[in-house]
Every structure is written in structure tokens, then in C-alpha cells.
């Protein structure tokens, strides 16, 4: 295994949203996260826990309120102007909504060419050539370039979105639930396409999803988010063998499975995700944790390394010593 080089390093990254009536939502709270070159990091968590915000802040489409973002060791948190445009091309994003992420008034070729023309300042004829190749690569065919997004189905649109993200030849892509709006049969097509592209281009990816099954098929490592914090980071196999955080445990056990056998013990969480504007004191998960003790209610645990490459934010991590065999 080659020595992992950090590509993206997030340090104490924080995003606040000022709401109405003095309501402040801290969507991302002091996240430390390293994404290594060539890996796909799967980010999972409940709706509203801050996955998208973290993803967006990483590529700075949402400006972080605090902390630093390093790209290849360079601080890009406050980079502006031409320098930033250079970096911009390296960091791209695929969006969830195949309808809202494509400008309905522009042709597919225009949409895909835009980052080439702007961020890369590629001359038009050259951009045209790249776009044609890309459209072929994502399986739409170059003829698709003259048409407009509304003429395509959801899955095809998602391919357009992927082509656009790949156009400036980025090194890092945030994929924010790229398949969750698609039907299962189409989902599989797109996941396969992404997996191929990652392999062919050596992409590094932050893959956001709430579907553990999807993440399992594409990610190398898994990061679990809860209420704006990363609570567990583990390699894929370690995680699916048995999460170390009680939340991860519950999450995994809640996924309905396609198996005939009576399922393993189902750990049902009580209650909902707390209000992100007023997170509980101590461990943020203690309100729903079946193992919670007094310490959890007062003292916030830190994200600590419990095993090689495995970090957990819990006073009492569930050590993944034994599987169900």
C-alpha cells in the first residue's frame, strides 16, 4: 500500500448560518478531516447533520466561518482572485438534484464547457473537443451536446453533471448524494460510472450519502457525521464489520436488508436529531444513546484514534473485536 498523501486537510472547520430571530445554526462544528490522494471518502449521517455544508465548505462554495482548508499543503481558506481560480478548477462538485443543478436555458455543451472556459481559460475549439470526449466518456454521446437538460432523464442529467465536474480535470470532487434522487436501476448505472471514472482518472472524492449501501460500494473510508461533528472515521471494511460509535452501530442496524433470515438485533434509536441550533451539552449523541452515562451528559468526548486509521468521538467506543462470525 502506497504511503497516503493528504490532498485535503480540514482543520477546525466551522460553518455557521445566521438564522432569523438570533437563531444561529452551527452546521459544521470544528471538523478536522484529512482526505488522502486517490481515496474516496464516504460521508454519512442523518439528514440535516451538516454533510452537504461540510462538502460545500471544503470546495468553498459555502464560505467557512472558521478553521482552515489546506489543499496539497497550501492554505486555500481565504484565497482570492486569479490564484483561487486556478485552485477552483482542481476542486469540483457533483450535485444531488439532477433537475436543479443544470441551467435549463443552456445547451449541454455550454454547461460542460463553462468551467473549462472560465476556470481553465481553455480556448474554445479545444474546450469543444474536451467536451465531446467527456460526453462520450459519461455515456451520453457527443450529439447530446446540442440539446438542453430538460430533454434528458434524471440519470442522464446526472451524467451531464458528472461531465461538467470532470471537465476542468479536477483532482478532487465532492459528490453530494449524486444518486439519491435516482431510481435503483438508474442508481446502479451512475455508481458504476463514478467508480470507473475514479479509477481511470485517479480522482480523490468526498462521497456524501445517507445510503450506507451505496457508500459501501464506492468508498474506501467512511466518516460518520452527527450534528455537525465527525463522530467516527474508519476504513470501509472496519466500519461495516462493526461501527465503533453507538450511533454508527444504530445507523447500520436500521438499514432494512434484503435477506430472508431473521435480521440481527435491530437497535432502534429513540427520538430525532436534536435541533442543530441548540445542541445538547456533553456528547451530542447522549440524548439518543442507549449506553449513555452521566459523563456523557456533561463531558464532550474528543475524536480520538482507537485503532490504526480509526477515530471515534466517544467515551466508550464499541471496540470491533469480534464480528458476528
Amino acid at each position, binding site marked *: 500500500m502506497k504511503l497516503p498523501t493528504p490532498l485535503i486537510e480540514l482543520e477546525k472547520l466551522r460553518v455557521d448560518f445566521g438564522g*432569523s*430571530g*438570533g*437563531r444561529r445554526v452551527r452546521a459544521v462544528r470544528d471538523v478536522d478531516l484529512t482526505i488522502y490522494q486517490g481515496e474516496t471518502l464516504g460521508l454519512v449521517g442523518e439528514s440535516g447533520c451538516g454533510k452537504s455544508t461540510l462538502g460545500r465548505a471544503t470546495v468553498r462554495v459555502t464560505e467557512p466561518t472558521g478553521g482552515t482548508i489546506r489543499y496539497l499543503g497550501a492554505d486555500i481558506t481565504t484565497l482570492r482572485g486569479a490564484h483561487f481560480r486556478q485552485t477552483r478548477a482542481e476542486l469540483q462538485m457533483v450535485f444531488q438534484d439532477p433537475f436543479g443543478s443544470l441551467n435549463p436555458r443552456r445547451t449541454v455543451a455550454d454547461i460542460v464547457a463553462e468551467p473549462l472556459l472560465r476556470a481553465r481559460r481553455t480556448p474554445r475549439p479545444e474546450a469543444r473537443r474536451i467536451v465531446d470526449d467527456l460526453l462520450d466518456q459519461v455515456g451520453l454521446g457527443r450529439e447530446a451536446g446540442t440539446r438542453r437538460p430538460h430533454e434528458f432523464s434524471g440519470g442522464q442529467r446526472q451524467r451531464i453533471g458528472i461531465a461538467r465536474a470532470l471537465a476542468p480535470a479536477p483532482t478532487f470532487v465532492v459528490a453530494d448524494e449524486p444518486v439519491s434522487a435516482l431510481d435503483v436501476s438508474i442508481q446502479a448505472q451512475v455508481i458504476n460510472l463514478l467508480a470507473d471514472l475514479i479509477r481511470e482518472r485517479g480522482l480523490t472524492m468526498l462521497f456524501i450519502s445517507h445510503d450506507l449501501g451505496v457508500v459501501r460500494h464506492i468508498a474506501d473510508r467512511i466518516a460518520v457525521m452527527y450534528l455537525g461533528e465527525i463522530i467516527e472515521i474508519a476504513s470501509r471494511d472496519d466500519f461495516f464489520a462493526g461501527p465503533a460509535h453507538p450511533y454508527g452501530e444504530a445507523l447500520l442496524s436500521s438499514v432494512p436488508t434484503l435477506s430472508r433470515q431473521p435480521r440481527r438485533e435491530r437497535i432502534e434509536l429513540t427520538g430525532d436529531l436534536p435541533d442543530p441550533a441548540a445542541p445538547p451539552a456533553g456528547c451530542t449523541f447522549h440524548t439518543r444513546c442507549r449506553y449513555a452515562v452521566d459523563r456523557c451528559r456533561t463531558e464532550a468526548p474528543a475524536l480520538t484514534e482507537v485503532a490504526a486509521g480509526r477515530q471515534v468521538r466517544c467515551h466508550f467506543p464499541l471496540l470491533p473485536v469480534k464480528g458476528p462470525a
Partner: protein
Amino acid sequence: MTGTWWLVVKRLAAVPLVLLALSTMVFVAVRTLPGSPATGLAAGGSSGTSSAADITANTAKINAALGLDKPLPEQYATFLGDVVHLDLGSSFYGGNDITGLLGDALPATIELTVAAMLIAVLIGMLTGILAALRRGTWIDTATRAIGTVSFSLPWFALGVLGIVVFGVWLRWLPVIGRLPNALDYHPLTNFVLLDAILQDRPELIWPWLQHLIMPATTLALSMAGFITRIVRASVLEVLGDDFVRTARMKGLSPGAILRRHVLRNSSLPIVTVLGLQFGSLLGGSVVTETVFSYPGVGNLLVNGILQRDYPIVQGAALAIALLFTLVNVVVDLLYLALDPRLRKA
């Protein structure tokens, strides 16, 4: 509900700021009006025998007396100081106390615009709901067409037409004023209806209504057409909402669905529009009041503009803007009452 009160307080707290800004705008706007009252005063009523030197001297003297010779910032400071003390100054022509003038005129304008609003809402709601429920039928088309026409009526000519038809030809309605001149009315609150109750003079009410109906309807007509459109659109919109389907799923009758689910929810956009439309009503009242010699703020304003009587223009414009702002505060609060979603502070 503390959040709700917080919102209310915040909304109300903004009013003085808005008024400050409005006062500034009014001050600036009024001072850009061409012509000065001083010359008019200086030469007014003179038998033409006074010499030019006299008039020039007199103009300067009047300017000084009215404070118009001071630099604008100083005039502004004085003006603001006075506004804060609810002292809107006194009229150039005869030194009437503006606050007093507004005290007379504002209730009349409020009566007029509120009556117009009620008429418009009544007509607009009924027709709008009807059109929405009968969408696509000839009733819908007809309602929409009539609504659009009434919305587009040249409001400026409408009052005159009403006067000719109902005042002169049919002689059903009086054409000027707010109450018959022959009637003794000693205002207490200056709201006739209220005074009729407080002073136990029910005989005031009928003539008052007679005087109110024509200007109010004139004002209301164009707005009614507008409300029809909005009501129709927003009822249709709500009819397409999922919770209406839920209501149907419950087995409710169409009437119950309309009453309990559609109306309240579709009133949200309507209420907003009403707030904004109140501005048109106030604007329209400027003209309507002139046509009907109706003793309101609009009339006052027009006179003020014609005479270059700055304090009156300032006061009247400020009063209209204040009224409008307050109505919109009320609308916001109403909105808050109607839409619980907004209460989450």
C-alpha cells in the same frame, strides 16, 4: 410564544426607523418643489401698489419668519427635532397647527380607505373564490375579464362619472364632503361612527354612510378587480396543495375543505397584497378626495402642493406614509397570526 412577541417587538421597533427615513425623504422631496411660498405670501392680496423693493424685502422677511433662509441642514435638524416631538410645525398660510390639521383629516381618510378596503375585499373575495372554484368555465372567464377591466378603469375619471350618475342624474347620493353642512357635528374622536356611539347621536350614521359610499366605492373598484385576481390565483394554488388532498382523503365535504383549509391558507398571499394595495388606496384617495371635496389627508396634501405650503405637504405625506407603514405592520402581525410557520423565531 416568546418568539412571537420578539417578532412583534422587532417589527414595531423598526417603525420609528422607517419614519425617520421617510421624514428625510419627505423633507428633501418637498424642498425640491419649484416655487417658494414666500413670494406668494409677500405679493398675495396686495393691491399691486406695493413696490418691487417692498416685495423683495417682504419676501426676505417672510423667509426669515418661516425659517426658509436657514441652511438646509439646519432646517432639517429643526424639522427632525420637531417631528420627534410630534410637532409637525404650522402651515405657512395662517400658521395652522399641522398636527391639528392632520387630527381632523386623518380620521376621514382612514374611514374612506378602510371602507374602500372592506368593499374591495368583499367583492374581490367573493368573485375570486367563485372564479377559482369554477375554474375554466365561463363564470371564471367572465369574472376574470370583469375583474381586469375594473382593475384597469381610469380611476381618475371614475369619480366624476359617479358624481354625474348618482349625484346629478339620480340624485341618490350627495357629491361632496363627509357630512351634510347643515348637520351639527362636534367631533370627539373625529371618527363619525365612533362619535355617533359615544355622543349617542345615531342620526349621524346614515348621512355619513351616504357621503362615504360613493368615494369609497370609486376607490374600491379598481382594487376589487385586483383582489379578485389574487384571490383566484391563491385559492387555485392552495387547491393544488397536498394538504387539500389530505382533507379530501378525510372525507370532508367541499364546503368544509374550503372553509377550514383553503381559505385560511390562501389568505396569506392575499393579506400581503392587501397591505401593499392599501398604498394604492391611499394614493388613489389623493385624487378621490379632491374630486369629492372629501376632507381628508389627500385633499390637504394637494392643497399643500398647490400652495407650496411645505409643512402641510411634509405633514400630510408623512401621515400617509405613517398610515401605510402601520397598516403594513398590522399586515405583518396578521400574517404572524395566520401563519404559524413564521412564529418560529
